[in-house]
């Protein structure tokens, strides 16, 4: 007889469960006839279904996107880079307005103002709302009427909500539908991420550990103090480095590059300059070390994991910048550069 031994090792399911996958296919299949019908309209681009996530508050997952056969390459590129297989930040999108107001009307897309959107809200399941959103080419959509669009989609809705309900019912067994679907973070940034570390710290620690520790504590505790005054938060402190985030405040329209850039120039850059000056003053007191700091500033999306870690691709991006720009004191990721100069 073979005895089974129970272990702590959980059962791993690194790909979406086959049940969720089959529900996703059903959602795609229920959108297809609607898309076929809407494709008669030259301005029509795509239909997508978004389901609000149970873990990531104020975000929804892009469960399905079905596009018209005639759409342009730039529209495909936008959907693939910013929406497909991603969560969507409801605070910075027209989609979010539909989730909040539950009203169906034309709205210019905030993420891509070349698009005109039309959303329909429903609660296929008491726990999670969903929105069916249609996108149109704004340049040629001037003759479209809301009522005409609504009447085209009306016959398809009950099937779409029925399959959505099955998907949501399955997903609430899990902590997050977005995580089960391996959704990437939203394409819209929610914070500036700042990372600093000390150049050649291993040498400094091996030669003068006690002095290095003293200097590092002086500096890190002061950074925590000044971070507070800039509404920044130190999210990780390891060895010779800190990760810090400055969340873009709610009053700023995250989809507005000008506002995000202005916030960066007025709040983030002064904070970074303050860190640099503070470091230079403290470093002067440790001539035996002559420590040098390098700082990376990135604009991107940061998220808090179930392990309490604050992470996001932007932190890796900054780490890669450090590897590439070894000696530079201050570096920026591409997104931060663009919006700060905008």
């Amino acid at each position, binding site marked *: 007889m073979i005895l089974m031994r129970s272990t*702590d*090792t*959980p059962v*791993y399911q*690194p790909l979406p469960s086959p049940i969720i996958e089959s529900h996703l296919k059903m959602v795609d299949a229920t959108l297809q006839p609607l898309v076929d019908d809407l494709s008669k309209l030259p301005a029509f681009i795509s239909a997508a279904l978004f389901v609000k996530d149970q873990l990531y508050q104020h975000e929804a997952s892009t469960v399905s996107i079905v596009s018209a056969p005639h759409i342009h390459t730039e529209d495909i590129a936008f959907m693939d880079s910013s929406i497909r*297989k991603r969560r969507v930040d409801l605070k910075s999108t027209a989609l979010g307005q539909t989730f909040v107001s539950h009203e169906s009307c034309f709205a210019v897309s905030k993420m891509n103002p070349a698009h005109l959107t039309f959303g329909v809200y429903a609660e296929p399941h008491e726990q999670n709302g969903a929105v069916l959103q249609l996108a149109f080419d704004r340049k040629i959509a001037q003759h479209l009427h809301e009522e005409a669009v609504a009447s085209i989609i009306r016959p398809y809705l009950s099937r779409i909500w029925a399959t959505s309900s099955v998907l949501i019912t399955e997903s609430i067994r899990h902590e997050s539908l977005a*995580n089960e679907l*391996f*959704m*990437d*973070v939203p394409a819209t940034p929610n914070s500036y991420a700042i990372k600093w570390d000390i150049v050649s*710290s*291993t040498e400094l*620690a*091996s030669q*003068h*550990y*006690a*002095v290095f*520790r*003293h200097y590092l*504590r002086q500096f*890190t*505790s002061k950074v925590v103090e000044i971070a507070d005054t800039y509404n920044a938060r130190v999210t*990780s*402190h*390891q*060895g010779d480095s800190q*990760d810090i985030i400055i969340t873009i405040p709610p009053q700023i329209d995250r989809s507005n590059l000008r506002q995000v850039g202005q916030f960066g120039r007025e709040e983030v850059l002064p904070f970074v300059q303050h860190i640099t000056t503070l470091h230079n003053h403290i470093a002067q*007191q*440790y*001539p*035996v070390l002559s420590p040098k700091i390098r700082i990376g500033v990135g604009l991107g999306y940061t998220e808090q*994991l*179930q*392990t309490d*870690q604050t*992470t996001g*691709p932007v*932190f*890796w991006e900054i*780490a*890669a910048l450090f*590897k590439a720009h070894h000696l530079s004191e201050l570096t920026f990721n591409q997104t931060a550069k663009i919006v700060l100069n905008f």
Partner: protein
Amino acid sequence: MTVQTPSLPNPILQTHIEMINASIQPIVERLSHTSPFISAGLFIEDNHYKGEAGTASIVNTPVVKPEFIDFTENSVRGRRIDLSSTVLGKVFNTHESAFEISKLDPAHHITWGIYSELRPNRGAVLQLVFDRNKTHLIDEEIVRQHTMPFLNSIWASSKLLINEATQTSLADELLLNVPATPNAYILKWDVQKSTSLVTANYPLFRHYLSRFELAAEQIATHYGAEITEYEGDSQNIIIPLPPTLDRSSIEDIGIFGRTVALPFTQHLLSLHDSIAAHYPQLEPRLRACLGLGYAERATTGEVTGPVFWELAALLRNDSGDHLAINQAAQLVMKWSER
């Protein structure tokens, strides 16, 4: 006279240290003429690092041979001392003065210490070190005679020192290094080429990493290990030497390494390989480093120590091995196999 290098951030502390050195000097001069004396040291219990004392001063006899003070210079001066692995700790506990063979350098040193309470729960010990091979020339009565007249001034300067130290830890203010005796095995791992994996497929990478980190946390508890840091694609894990183990015994530390730290490391690596096999799109590879050293909980709450930097350097110089082991860990584990 002992000179602290580099100079302390607080010049007043520097002055008090020099006063302590000056008040120990007469004892050193007298004992140097009458016994096989090597050095005198003043140790003060630390306010933050419990179970440890800071080496406030060491004054050597001018006539000693270098080999007799090598140990003191490398392992005692400018450092904190772990009281659980030294005879110094015994004096702090019993408050009794008696000759004791040094646990840290038993071949060369015999010690005699005297305790004083500078302030409630804040003791200090003046410890004298003698040549163990000439014990027939050491007389406890003579030691007392040459020491007692100078104690008041030593304790007075020591009180000034602890009164001046306003920060969380006197040892930190004196820029003291960690104890030379290890207190833990440390395991550090990270994922190779994580930046490319994140760029290629962040959500899948995050999924894999969360699974592995949570599973690592589960097995860590079975081995008495503690995860002290998560960052991005890496974890720092410490496996503290248990209190039942004699930290001054290389053999005991080596056996613990072979029977606990190494199996834990192997378990973690094989756990990773099993999980990684479920992510063929990523094919993530782990590199791990095991080290023996001193891990301290800093006043900021962070667990750190020179060994963490040593492991980081080992990871950077990684030659493609799955597992690298620092020199101290290699030595004690091999030594205990003899």
